């Protein structure tokens, strides 16, 4: 039982659910951007878990971690989108099913 009576269990449950949904997205979506969105979702799930624990432990470090993670996510997004654009210049698509020049 943590701040304001929110059980840690709920937090973890939500976090886990989001994480799994993210995984599902990453596996089932076809265009690169959607896949990356799913990954972002997974990272948020992690953040939620951290904050949940931080609250439960009365530990500020968690918030610091999340703070950094969000920044990292932003940076990742920038690079990722840049890569998408660069690739799109060649393939005119970001559908990963059609991006398999390198294989076998």
């Amino acid at each position, binding site marked *: 039982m943590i701040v304001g009576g929110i059980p840690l269990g709920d937090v973890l449950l939500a976090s886990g659910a989001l994480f799994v949904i993210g995984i599902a997205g990453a596996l089932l979506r076809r265009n690169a951007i959607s896949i990356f969105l799913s990954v972002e979702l997974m990272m948020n799930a992690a953040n939620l878990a951290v*904050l949940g624990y931080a609250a439960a432990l009365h530990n500020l470090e968690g*918030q610091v971690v999340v703070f950094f993670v969000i920044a990292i996510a932003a940076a990742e997004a920038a690079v990722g989108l*840049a890569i998408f654009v660069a690739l799109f210049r060649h393939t005119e698509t970001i559908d990963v099913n059609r991006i398999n020049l390198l294989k076998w």
Partner: protein
Amino acid sequence: MTAARLAFDAAAGVAIIFACVMVVHRNPVKSVLALVVSFFALAVTYVLLSAPLIAAVQVIVYAGAILVLFLFVLMLLNVPEEARRGSGHPIQNFLASVAIVVFAAALLAVFRAYGGIASQPAGDWKADVADVARLVFSEHLLSFEALSVLLLAALVGAFTLARRESRS
């Protein structure tokens, strides 16, 4: 069943639902928007978990900056809606579903059984933004500096890739 918990569950529920929407919706633009909503809901849960600063950052950076960037790129590349047909090999999808279910089961089972923490600190707790800041600049100074390098790298990298071919 406190109000806080109700609120949390509601927000989390919204986040989860819209996350699902994001995953299942074949139109990327709409799935981005769904994700925006999901992140807003998460921001709410952050507040409830007494992390106002993070909530703010979540809204501004994530929902604000990043996802807008996504939308922007989507428009730029005008990514088409995913065709219903042939979204990957059936075996792929089948295995994926099975794996996801098993994984989810395992994850949630472990959470339910062992998610708890050893010693619950007593008393109420209020996170102060100033403390967070102090922590960032004292104990996590190194991470902070490192992060700056990371951002720089990302910046230069993005710039390297995205700018028009000049040479060769």
